[in-house]
């Protein structure tokens, strides 16, 4: 019976990975979008209202891109680590440039 | 003018449809020979782009929005024809060509 146990464990692992991918995609994707578009709004060298509108209208794209990537990438560890990395980099740049969250 | 844009759009998608081997056979009763499909595709693209240009030139940004709507209706019509009465396709082709001539004449004269 060890074989059956193994498949059960695998199934459970798969399920937990799917759920965590969802969480990473939904929450991580939102924060990536927020920070990336904030960065755009902060740094675009044009009138501030124009910069804001450009950032908002194009910033939405970051969300589906992140989402697709989280589910398209094979290695779960890679997804998790890169997500943390990207968030840290974005947050770092934003704070360095004097942005606020 | 509206009609002309729509008819060109429809004609283009008719071309795309007939360029697919299975639809070609359905309509004309034999398999396409040689590179007729690629010719059809090129002609259809030209038709489609012509329709888009026509709508933008005459109506600007509004025209391009309307053009997208026309594409939807054109494909919907063709899907309906292929799902129910594929042999009507030929008659539709004659009808569309005839109407295009009529509309162009109308446009040139008036």
């Amino acid at each position, binding site marked *: 019976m060890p074989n059956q146990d193994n498949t059960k464990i695998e199934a459970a692992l798969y399920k937990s990975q799917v759920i965590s991918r969802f969480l990473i995609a939904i929450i991580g994707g939102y924060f990536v979008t927020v920070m990336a578009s904030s960065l755009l709004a902060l740094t675009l060298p044009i009138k*501030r209202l124009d910069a*804001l*509108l450009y950032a908002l209208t194009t910033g939405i794209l970051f969300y589906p891109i992140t989402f697709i990537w989280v589910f398209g990438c094979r290695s779960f560890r890679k997804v998790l680590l890169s997500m943390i990395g990207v968030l840290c980099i974005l947050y770092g740049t934003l704070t360095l440039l004097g942005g606020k969250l | 003018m509206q009609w002309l844009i729509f008819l060109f759009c429809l004609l283009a998608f008719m071309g795309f449809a007939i360029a697919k081997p299975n639809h070609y056979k359905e309509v004309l009763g034999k398999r396409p020979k040689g590179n007729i499909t690629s010719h059809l595709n090129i002609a259809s693209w030209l038709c489609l782009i012509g329709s888009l240009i026509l709508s933008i030139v005459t*109506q600007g940004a509004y025209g391009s929005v309307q053009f997208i709507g026309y594409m939807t209706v054109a494909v919907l019509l063709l899907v309906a024809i292929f799902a129910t009465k594929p042999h009507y396709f030929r008659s539709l082709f004659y009808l569309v060509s005839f109407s295009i001539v009529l509309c162009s004449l109308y446009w040139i004269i008036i």
Partner: protein
Amino acid sequence: MRESFFRGMTWLHTWVGLLVCWLLFLIFFAGTASFFRHEISLWAQPATHHLPQYNHAFQQQTVTKSIERFQHIAPTAESWRIELPTERRPSLLLMYSEKPEEGERRGKRHSEYLDPITLDALPEFRDTKGGNFFYRLHFDLHYMNAITARWIVCFATLFMLIALISGVVIHKRIFKDLFQFRSKKGLRSWLDAHNVSSVIALPFHIMITYTGLVTLIFMLLPQPAQQRYEDKQTLRAERYPLLATAPATGLPLQELALNKALDHYYTNSGNAPLRRVVISSPNDASATIKLYANAGRAVQDDPPSWMYNAASGELLKTHNVTLSGAENLYGGMIALHTGRLAEPTLRWLYFIAGLAGCVMIATGAVMWAKRLRQKLKRDEKPGFGLKLVESLNLGTIMGLPAATAAFFYANRLLPTELVARADKEVLVFFIVWAIVAIAACYKSDRLAWQLTAKVNALAWAGLPVVSMLTIEGNLVSYLIHKQWVLFGFDALAIGIAVSFLVQARKLGRSQVTPAAPSRRSQREVKI
């Protein structure tokens, strides 16, 4: 790697879609109806049926008369607002708000609909929401806080965007089999219907989803706005410069220089018709006159607006008369979403594309349940999840049209003197929807679908009849008097009835299950 990517996308498409499909169906349904918001409102308000098409040449006269009326009925109001008739709304709407009382943020508002030529009140005006109900339902839902609702709608829309993109990725074949719809092939047909309805209007689906997010973007992503703006007020002042009000002087206004302002406007705007006139603090010397142009077919949502000093008639500021690239992009996106620019042809195209969206969502949801049903072994009992999905499918897909029909019946049948009549119409909508949904929980098999289809067909077919019996005018008289909007409404109701009838007959006929699908189609169906 490639294989697993597609597996991931397939999985994503299925589950993201399933999670929000019923809510999305509601949003798409209400949104599609909202393209005809003013047309529905017109139908729902028989008092305005006989108003003739308004000629914009009368605008100056209408505005002058409206001001006279305001001076008579609301001399102390804080602001007067005139919504001039448009191609889609034949009546004149006058609104004014009183000065706020102690402790109130804004004063009480009053509004009245009038005949634009005589400025008489419209007789037998009924209290109804009409098309505005669907418009609000589209993003505010109902029976809940509007902001919460908008957040829910926003996330459903984000999921929709993801489902769309992953859908395009996995259904590579959709463009290849663009014109293919194989009927009477069981699951295969559902997949075809799903593909066809998504592909034919794919640009529309992507556009409407994306721009839908843009309409709520300031709520969804508040942070970018905080980067270079100190607070919301600064941003507001920069986005809507005409909203800034000069401090009151306490001196009375000698004379309203309306004609001078109007003349200046017509000369400098190339005689563009007006959409709205607002006069702020009309009895103070600091009063302003704001004129909003009717943007017509321009792909721009905020109309060009001009602000004048009410005492001297001098131009103070303009807004949106020339736009920067970013403003064009943002305004254009919102204009595309709301479709206010659309003239009848384009409006119908919008409507057809919206219907395609509804079909896309509905077929997707039905397909999920069918596929699971097919996998069940002969004597296996369906699980709770499958039953839930089947009930929700039936309750939403067939319940919403029925509820909508009920809403229109309520509009015609509820007595006009009823208190809070507009809310009761809405109540009828939700009661009928709840009835269908509860019935769907009890039974959601083929017979139930057939029954609800028949009920829907009957309800929609009866609508023009009931309308004919309760108000003056019917399908024939609309045709004779060229009241195209009303004619279109009744004709559409009959069209909807016919399509439900066709559905009921199809459900009755294809009782026998289709032959086992071939290997190839089975593989495709898995997608």
